[in-house]
């Protein structure tokens, strides 16, 4: 009924390198869609080096110590505090690099950038390091030059409004009143949003657009712009007072780094749309439903122009990332950013949002949303414990209000002009802003929040608060300046001043902490709904069906089914579209079955003197394939969860007669109620497969008797028929009768039953053992790996990989062999006669066998006795099977003698020690212990964080905050 996704299992914590790249707003994976060969990137090493950055303009900015990163094709810098100064610039915008003549011992480079600015970096590391860095930089620059990237800069920057702004101001100094004159001249060349046509939200006078533009113009002139923006403290300050509408779109893409994606993938957006013209998917259908409900009050979305832009952007994204597709709330984001950006700009910003800034928020499981809600809750608990406790006491769930805050970046929670200012800060300072603002909202409303009694009250309070954001925060203050501060300003102030402890690092580590909890709850939830949505549970309880689900899930983790789960073309079923359903292929099924059926796995108990373990392999056999197709009732070559449940239901609850019939039907390929001779042989092969690890010869004997009897009875019946039909055939020997083709109906169910019941062992197999060989046990591996974090965690996780474990096992095995303690035993699948042979102490090797021979008469059927031909019809059938030893041709040994050998080996090896099942788990237990330690460490680490940030950073933040107040009313 539904899809089952194991995608969450694939999550990997970001590496240090990825975190750095994220910090510098670079896509962690070089856009895989890039068609041009990207191998070049790998040739250049990444490197970072200590450096002091100075702006090439005298007296403009202080110098800052920090780190310079070469991450081709980008060069990036961050000041030591990671917030004051930073830049990320494409190497292709560097026009010239010069080594400066300076005092001895000082190694400085001057970089001339595209926009005409100059920066000076003083490499403060040791000389050889600096030399290496320069060499790498030179190589990287050369590659960019060869790829012709240097030339593309000029064309690209033309699409940026900032260029118009900076150059336009030269001839229209009266820009202050009305910027229209400047922009209209070159309207066509630079990218802009719907706002240019349909007006931007808010009153430009009140927003002080003109003065903001002026301030930015000054800043952009000296500090670079678009691709080469250098972010000094003033930049952040300017962002915090709100971006001017005309520049907003470009600044968003510059600050978020989406500009680099647009720069390095020219034309991709158009291509995507072109390649997918006319294509409809579930995503495009969902998008269509929401187009008219995305910021409907904005004029641009009351016109076809706005609607179709929105459609194209959302569709293009869903084509680019079909796994994510489209999630409600993305329409609101896209609609919002399209007011300020062109379609292409919006497309790439959406990419950055979904991929990097809001990871997993819009994924089908929405795990990112759930995770960040959990993180937010824990931050509330930590920062605002009283509110948290009150919410607990009155059973109010924070998420009912905060979920849409995060999911749509406050855009549909507060008036747009305010939400966009939060979005400004969000792109500039990162995802932590969402948390800081959320906490500040709660803190400001603290007293009222303590009065609320239920979810509804909470929502109403929040709604009223958001509606009043434009009001004065201190309406009764005597100081007019205090009165002028709006509630929104107060909100930002509290966000950044009081919650500066919330850093991106903290959020990363909190996410790490709660990730498993969230994944677990999502998986539990989908398991519950998968079980609930089964059309039929059969005779299973819900818990048992849950165990089937676990086995399926485990199998899917190990052998994922093919990704394309699109339902078959929905041409005919109008309206009644099939929901995509997860179905597994044969390979996954084999694994699944190995989790459940004892005979569908090869289990070797290995002991080497150091350890004892069970090596489990997935068995492959025609029998399992047969089962797969037997259960595939809808004949689509793949099994759904429902098929598996129904299939298992068909065998696990059977009594003797039902089991015999089940087994018969399983082998009756054409369902005509008869087994052919070939199929009889297949039945015995199936038996041999199931019994392959049984101790002793009892089962082999049983199978050989089955063969004898089957052919005896079968021929007898056949002879009857033949005699009646054709009496002239009398002279033919009844034993090797007519050349009956091996694919003719031969044995019916009644006869088959007779044959089976003639044998005690087979009878007991069908009575209980067959059903019992399917076992629904909790699967231990399903447990998530411990949330390893901290140094030790990482250390351990690098050691405890599967391959390392294998290596270790191999190693100990080798030692075991040399000291003669290495032993391998196959664990029997049925194990009925195990108890008989379970030696109390060491017994003579022959004991088990001897006992066996006493209790069962089967030992007489020596290994060679039942010659089993693989069902190749050409060889003709020999029916006098049991009579002779003269049949020892090699061909007959196929599939048989290995088993005998195995059985013998097992017999011999068996008494050497007793199997101690409980021991197997020791390793896991140790793992878990380790995990416990790690968890503590996480806490320590987080605590350390908090302290470190409480001190030291507040001053700087205060300054920012102070500037924030002062900055807005100026001029």
């Amino acid at each position, binding site marked *: *009924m539904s899809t089952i996704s194991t995608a969450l299992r694939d999550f990997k914590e970001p590496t240090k390198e990825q975190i750095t790249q994220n910090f510098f707003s670079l896509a962690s994976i070089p856009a895989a869609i890039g068609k041009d060969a990207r191998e070049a990137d790998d040739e250049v090493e990444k490197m970072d080096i200590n450096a002091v950055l100075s702006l090439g303009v005298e007296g403009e900015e202080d110098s800052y110590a920090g780190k310079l990163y070469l991450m081709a094709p980008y060069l990036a810098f961050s000041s030591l505090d990671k917030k004051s100064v930073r830049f990320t610039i494409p190497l292709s915008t560097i026009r010239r690099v010069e080594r400066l003549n300076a005092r001895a011992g000082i190694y400085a480079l001057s970089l001339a950038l595209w926009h005409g600015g100059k920066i000076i970096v003083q490499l403060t590391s040791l000389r050889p390091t600096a030399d290496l860095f320069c060499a790498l930089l030179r190589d990287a620059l050369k590659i960019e030059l060869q790829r012709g990237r240097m030339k593309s800069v000029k064309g690209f920057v033309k699409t940026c409004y900032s260029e118009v702004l900076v150059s336009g101001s030269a001839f229209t100094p009266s820009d202050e009143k009305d910027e229209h004159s400047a922009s209209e001249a070159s309207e066509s060349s630079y990218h802009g949003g719907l706002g240019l046509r349909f007006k931007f939200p808010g009153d430009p006078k009140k927003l002080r657009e003109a003065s903001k533009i002026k301030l930015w113009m000054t800043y952009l002139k000296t500090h670079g712009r678009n691709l080469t923006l250098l972010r000094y403290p003033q930049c952040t300050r300017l962002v915090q007072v709100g971006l001017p509408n005309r520049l907003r779109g470009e600044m968003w893409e510059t600050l978020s780094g989406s500009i680099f994606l647009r720069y390095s993938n020219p034309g991709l957006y158009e291509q995507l749309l072109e390649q997918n013209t006319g294509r409809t998917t579930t995503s495009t*259908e*969902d998008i*269509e*439903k*929401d187009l*008219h*409900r*995305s*910021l*409907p009050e904005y004029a641009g979305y009351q016109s076809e122009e706005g609607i179709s832009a929105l459609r194209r952007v959302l569709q293009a994204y869903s084509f680019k990332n079909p796994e994510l597709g489209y*999630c*409600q*709330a993305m*329409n*609101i984001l896209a609609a919002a950013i399209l007011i300020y950006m062109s379609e292409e700009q919006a497309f790439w910003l959406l990419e950055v949002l979904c991929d990097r800034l809001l990871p997993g928020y*819009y*994924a*089908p*499981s*929405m795990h990112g949303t*759930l995770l960040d809600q959990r993180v937010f809750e824990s931050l509330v608990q930590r920062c605002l414990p009283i509110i948290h406790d009150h919410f607990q006491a009155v*059973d109010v*769930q924070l*998420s*009912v*209000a905060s*979920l*849409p805050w995060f*999911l*749509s970046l406050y855009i*549909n*929670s507060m008036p747009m002009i305010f939400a966009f200012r939060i979005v400004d800060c969000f792109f500039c300072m990162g995802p932590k802003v969402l948390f800081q603002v959320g906490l500040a909202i709660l803190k400001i409303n603290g007293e009222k929040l303590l009065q609320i009694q*239920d*979810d*509804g009250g909470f*929502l*109403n309070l*929040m*709604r009223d608060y*958001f509606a009043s954001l434009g009001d004065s925060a201190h309406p009764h203050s005597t100081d007019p300046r205090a009165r002028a501060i709006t509630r929104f300003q107060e909100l930002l102030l509290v966000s950044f001043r009081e919650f500066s402890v919330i850093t991106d690092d903290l959020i990363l580590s909190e996410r790490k902490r709660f990730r498993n909890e969230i994944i677990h709850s*999502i998986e539990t*939830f*989908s398991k*519950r*709904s998968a079980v*609930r*949505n089964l059309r039929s549970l059969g005779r299973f309880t819900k818990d048992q069906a849950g165990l089937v689900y676990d086995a399926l899930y485990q199998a899917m983790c190990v052998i994922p089914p093919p990704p394309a789960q699109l339902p078959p073309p929905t041409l005919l079923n109008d*309206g*009644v*579209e099939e*929901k995509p359903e997860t179905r597994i292929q044969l390979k996954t099924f084999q694994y699944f079955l190995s989790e459940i059926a004892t005979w569908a796995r090869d289990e070797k108990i290995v002991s080497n003197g150091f350890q004892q373990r069970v090596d489990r392999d997935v068995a492959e056999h025609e029998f399992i394939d047969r089962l797969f197709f037997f259960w595939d009732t809808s004949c689509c070559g793949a099994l759904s969860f429902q098929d598996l449940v129904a299939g298992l239901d068909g065998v696990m609850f059977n009594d003797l007669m039902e089991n015999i019939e089940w087994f018969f039907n399983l082998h009756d390929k054409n369902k005509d109620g008869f087994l052919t001779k070939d199929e009889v042989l297949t039945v015995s092969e199936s038996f041999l497969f199931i019994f392959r690890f049984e101790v002793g010869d009892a089962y082999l004997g049983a199978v050989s008797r089955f063969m004898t009897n089957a052919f005896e009875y079968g021929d007898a019946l056949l002879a009857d028929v033949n005699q009646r039909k054709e009496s002239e055939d009398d002279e033919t020997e009844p034993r090797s009768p007519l050349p009956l083709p091996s694919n003719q109906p031969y044995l019916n169910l009644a006869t088959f039953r007779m044959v089976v019941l003639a044998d005690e062992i087979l009878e007991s197999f069908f009575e209980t053992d067959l059903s019992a060989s399917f076992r629904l046990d909790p699967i231990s591996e399903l447990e998530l790996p411990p949330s390893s974090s901290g140094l030790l965690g990482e250390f351990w996780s690098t050691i405890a990989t599967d391959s390392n474990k294998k290596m270790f096992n191999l190693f100990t095995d080798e030692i075991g062999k040399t000291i003669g303690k290495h032993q391998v035993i196959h664990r029997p699948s049925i194990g009925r006669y195990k108890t008989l042979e379970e030696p109390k102490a060491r017994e003579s090797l022959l004991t088990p066998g001897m006992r066996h021979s006493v209790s069962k008469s089967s030992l007489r059927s020596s290994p060679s006795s039942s010659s089993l031909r693989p069902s190749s019809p050409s060889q003709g059938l020999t029916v006098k099977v049991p009579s002779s030893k003269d049949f020892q041709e090699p061909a007959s040994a196929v599939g048989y003698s290995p088993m005998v050998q195995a059985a013998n080996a097992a017999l011999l090896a068996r008494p050497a020690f007793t199997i101690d099942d409980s021991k197997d788990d020791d390793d896991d237990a140790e793992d878990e212990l380790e995990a416990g330690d790690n968890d503590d460490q996480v806490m320590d680490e987080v605590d350390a964080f908090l302290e470190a940030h409480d001190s030291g950073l507040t001053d700087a933040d205060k300054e920012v905050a102070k500037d924030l107040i002062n900055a807005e009313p100026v001029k």
Partner: protein
Amino acid sequence: MADAASGSTDKSVQVKLVLLGEAAVGKSSVVLRFVSDEFQANKEPTIGAAFLTQKCRLEDRVLRYEIWDTAGQERFHSLAPMYYRNAQAAVVVYDITKASSLDKAKSWVKELQRQANPNIVIALAGNKLDLVQPSILQSGTPSSESEDEADDATATPGETPSSPGESDGLRQVPRDEAQAYATEAGLLFFETSAKTGEGIVDIFTEIAKKIPIEHILAAGGGVRRPGAPGGRSGNAQEGAVNLEENANKPKDACNC
């Protein structure tokens, strides 16, 4: 009627109600019709859930519905428990012109019956009745943005009638079938149109009647269950049991 409740007539009884159903079946429109007797062509999609309140009078008692209107898109499913926990009532909406939406509704009912408050009153509502009623106004202009056709802005374009005469052919879920399912599962059942308003108020009236208010009123001891069952057949949409009392009051709608 019952004197135990007399003290609480001015104090309204809060009923938490949640709306569930496939995307674009018209959940939000049903609520909007109920809360402010409006029909809006373009409603913003619900992110997470919208919260609205509406007071209504049932005989001598005032009920205050706290309505949680949830997002319909499949991926928001895992958030739903947050909204239906502690709910005393649920309206599961499907689209009578879309058979698959009834399947989804059934799965919601199953989930509610297993996971939600055990005493929850569930109503099944087949929405978009206006689309299948032979009407003079049904003019199938495929280009128009479906605002005039469907009772919900979110109607998929493919569902607009191809020709006016065939309007009844749009129905994919026969009334009897849904009714039979509802009876079997113990649900209240309605066919509604948020666009015309048909059947909307009835849902909330019948829920109000069925809700064990005495459970909610912790104090109220022996309050008799109000209203006789089965009295709804005569209700015209407009004259429903004085539920329209505060249509003139300020709307409580919100979108946060």
